[in-house]
């Protein structure tokens, strides 16, 4: 395990053409925790993840704490290889492990996500939810120090979503690693986040950073302080949205 301390964005600027996505954007969060990024649609959350993975480079500023990290990711879309079976889709990213090690991890995560009986099926035979679960299995099975989750539950129904939130919490409980979780659902953030960064619309700034010290398995969102957190985040997001509407008017 690589010793980590903080993952930081230091005065990062990023534009796509004329659109300024990040404008002097900074944050710093401790490693080994679940960090939720919550904000309105299209606020640049995915850009932040792409900068963390190295798929995008900042125009100015720097990102520290991610060098030499093994990064795993669940994208908004499952991004599965249609010509590979469920098992093969996971083993595709496990090239550094021996075959028995791969098989052990594949079986473990497929059983956790109730996909084991589909291990020899092709993705075309899976439902949307099952494909997303497979993408989560792949990301968890890949040996990583940093896991990025880009709205992974977006296309799933409420029950499955709650189940997956619990599974992610359970997996983190077994192997605590840094997770950066992008969502626009306040409940998901409250259930999973040790730190919640509330982001504004473009160009993205941090409106607030909440730290929740209650262990993941003991969180009841109907009980304080969660309703208060919920209202606070909602107020921040709504306030920003109405300001932005007034600005447009």
């Amino acid at each position, binding site marked *: 395990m690589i010793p980590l301390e903080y993952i930081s964005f230091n005065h990062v600027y990023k534009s796509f053409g004329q659109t300024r996505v990040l404008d002097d954007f900074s944050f710093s969060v401790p490693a080994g925790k679940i960090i939720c990024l919550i904000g309105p649609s299209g606020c640049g959350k995915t850009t932040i993840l792409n900068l963390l*993975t190295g798929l995008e480079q900042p125009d100015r500023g720097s990102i520290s704490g991610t060098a030499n990290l093994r990064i795993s*990711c669940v994208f908004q879309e499952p991004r599965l290889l*249609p010509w590979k079976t469920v098992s093969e889709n996971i083993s*595709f*990213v496990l*090239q550094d492990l021996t075959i028995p090690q791969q098989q052990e991890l594949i079986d473990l995560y497929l059983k956790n996500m109730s996909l084991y009986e589909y291990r020899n099926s092709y*993705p075309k035979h899976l439902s949307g939810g099952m494909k997303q679960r497979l993408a989560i299995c792949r990301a968890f099975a890949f040996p990583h120090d940093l896991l990025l989750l880009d709205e992974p539950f977006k296309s799933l129904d409420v029950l499955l979503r709650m189940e997956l939130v619990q599974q992610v919490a359970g997996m983190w409980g077994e192997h605590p690693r840094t997770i950066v979780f992008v969502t626009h659902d306040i409940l998901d953030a409250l259930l999973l986040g040790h730190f919640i960064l509330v982001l504004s619309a473009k160009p993205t700034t941090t409106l607030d950073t909440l730290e929740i010290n209650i262990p993941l398995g003991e969180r009841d969102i109907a009980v304080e302080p969660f309703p208060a957190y919920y209202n606070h985040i909602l107020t921040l997001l709504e306030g920003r949205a109405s300001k932005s509407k007034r600005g447009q008017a």
Partner: protein
Amino acid sequence: MKNSSLKTKYVAPILGLVFFLAVWQFISGFYNPVIVPSPIETWRSFLTLAVSGLLWEHGRQTIVRGFAGFGLAVLAGTSLGFLIGLNRTAASLFQPLVVVLQVTPLISWLLLAMIWIGFTKVPLFIVFVTTLPLIITNTIQGIKNVDLQLLQMADVFRVDKIRIIREVYFPQVSPYLFAGLAAALGTTWKAVAMAELLSVNQGVGAGMAVARTNLETATLFAWTFFLIILGLLTDRLLSYLARQKLNQWM
């Protein structure tokens, strides 16, 4: 529903063939057999070629040359296609040459090949140069249409480049490659026969040259049908292989 698909699959093509043979028989009645031999005369010539062993003797040469040229073009075309599709410098370097290959008249290649490599290898060479650009361009087209999101995924998970080419690019290029192979295979039998006609004395093309000299039009027709059957069989075989390969996941 079942009946209608059966009709579309088997009955309609047979009816089409019967209609074609009837029209051919009808037209041949108006002409001397040297100009238009009838289907029956053509069939007799075909049988004569088969019984005499000429069909197999010439046919074998053509099949070997065709497949050898085609096989070399597949190897070289796929490799060059990947190189051009994945590397900008290689694209700048080789893409104009691919266009040159495409637009150079076949007769120029034929004559040059006779001078450069001797008569016996001309058919193989001609198949190679005529099919190579088809395979290269289809491979490049496939690479251009590769799903970028899958490449990003492989990149994030640090999958090595060779594996990405083999397991991400290649399956996505396959449908385009199969389309290129089908077009190339269609060209193969036409090109090999033409090259044989002008350069060697063995092979279907050479058999056609003899038939032409002797004004044996029915034999010429028989050789032509041999090439058509060869083309159809190899095309069906390729379609079967493509289905086996792609249907599992597409």
